[in-house]
């Protein structure tokens, strides 16, 4: 197991956004968590990466990391590509990427991987990141996460707000990352894309896991199809 969380909760004052979630991810596995707006998906990822406080057990590569601050988690290869991209808007594309290697990852080596994956970023490397299109910014955010040579890559709604053709491009890139052997925890509202891509899936409702299983099976389950695929 690369990641295991057990009775894991995240609260903001009185609001409990993630309620006693148990979830695990094997090495090289792709797991997706789907759920509607406000289900607690982002809170779950912020909790796992240590950016917000969480209660419960969390093991990374079989080690208890519940006391580890977020920057140490990054150092160990747990890297989040956050909701809303959160790139550095007034820095150039290249500078954004270099900062991705702030804690770990060989900048030269990783940059080659990123540019092979997203040739668009190579063309735009001198451009100020804030002027990139939405799709390019998403690629930059994923690229920046890759710069840290992730072992566990957490992606928060990478297809949000992108045109279908760009979404396809992003998923082609994610498939390449899977081939590289990176474990991926993928969060999506776009359930069809996510379920088609992932090995296993969890469905989150009101902060709780309500369904879990192999994603191919969930894709064919009537209740899931009705609630999340609108079929």
């Amino acid at each position, binding site marked *: 197991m690369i990641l295991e969380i057990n009775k894991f909760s995240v609260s903001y004052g009185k609001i409990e956004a993630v309620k006693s979630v148990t979830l695990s991810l094997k090495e090289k596995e792709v797991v997706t968590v789907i759920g509607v707006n406000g289900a607690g998906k982002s809170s779950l990822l912020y909790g796992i990466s240590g950016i917000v406080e969480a209660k419960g057990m969390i093991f990374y590569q079989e080690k208890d990391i519940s006391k580890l601050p977020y920057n140490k988690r990054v150092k160990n290869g747990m890297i989040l590509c956050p909701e809303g991209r959160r790139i550095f*808007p*007034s820095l150039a594309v290249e500078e954004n990427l270099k900062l991705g290697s702030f804690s770990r990852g060989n900048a030269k080596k990783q940059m080659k991987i990123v540019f092979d994956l997203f040739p668009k970023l190579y063309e735009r490397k001198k451009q100020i990141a804030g002027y990139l299109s939405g799709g390019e910014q998403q690629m930059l955010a994923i690229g920046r996460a890759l710069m840290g040579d992730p072992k566990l890559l957490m992606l928060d709604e990478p297809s949000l707000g992108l045109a279908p053709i760009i979404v396809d491009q992003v998923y082609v890139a994610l498939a390449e990352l899977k081939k590289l052997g990176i474990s991926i925890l993928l969060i999506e509202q776009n359930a069809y894309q996510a379920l088609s891509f992932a090995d296993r899936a969890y469905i989150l409702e009101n902060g709780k896991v309500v369904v879990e299983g192999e994603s191919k099976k969930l894709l064919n389950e009537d209740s899931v199809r009705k609630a999340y695929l609108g079929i």
Partner: protein
Amino acid sequence: MLVRILQSIIFGLFSGSLYGIIGLGLSLIYRTTGVMNFAHGNSGMIGVFVGWTILALTKNLFLSIFLGLIFGAILGIFMDKILMKKVKGLSHSSMLIITLGVLLIFEGIALIIWGTQPLLFKDIFSFPPKLIYLPQKLNPNNFPLIIPTNDFANFLVAVSLSILIILFSRLTKPGLALIARSEDEIGAKVVGINVNFADSLAWALGISTAVFAGFLVAPKTTVNPIMLVNFQLYGFTAAVFGGFSSFIGAFAGGLILGVLEKIVILVLDQLFTKLGISTINSVDLQLSIILLIIIITLIIKPTGIFGAKFKGKV
């Protein structure tokens, strides 16, 4: 006339470099942590008092300046950890009120410990001013350009300091952490930057530069509780002028502000002489000019003359 214009530009650059480093410190703290530190000048003043006291005890100028700067850094970290972290997540207006409170407290502390009697601080570089004569063709009256050595040395020191800070922020890891933090907090966290460290670093550096500026002006202003109050206003204007968008912008804003101020005074002088007005001394208008510049800048280009990119936090 040419000599007078050149002279104004030279004096303007000299004072502008001091506005610049105050503005640089303000914008360092503001860009990184989102706090507009209204206690900036007074934090610097406290540091200068500490340096002055050490000087009185040890007679060692460089040790005193060094310890004054270290004190400034510690004071900055203290302000971040104690005052700001407690109000994290509170509105900008609450932070503003807190820094205003600190401003008053620092002034009170200085009054209680060191009293109201202005304390003298020697020129660091005391050589006679240098006189430069332009060629006769350009300068029919043969007036000299006056370059006071202490001011010139201050200027060089201030320019070097700002270049150092800019290089630091571009080329070192802690510096890059500052930049990333100022660009996006979550973005900084996900690349593994310890944001609390970046905040403390910004405060430490920022307050240290204020102390530094205080040492540079101390021979002129004397060491007293309100020695940096006006300079803070100038520094703020420099940063507004530079748009708070970059550290270079704040320093350049200071230089431009300094020159602009002296040129406006020169023009007003000429105007008043022509109109035969002798009751107004144009130097007294200095502060009004600064305020006017802030207002005009904010109306014409709210993001500053160099333009802030992509965000307006004010």
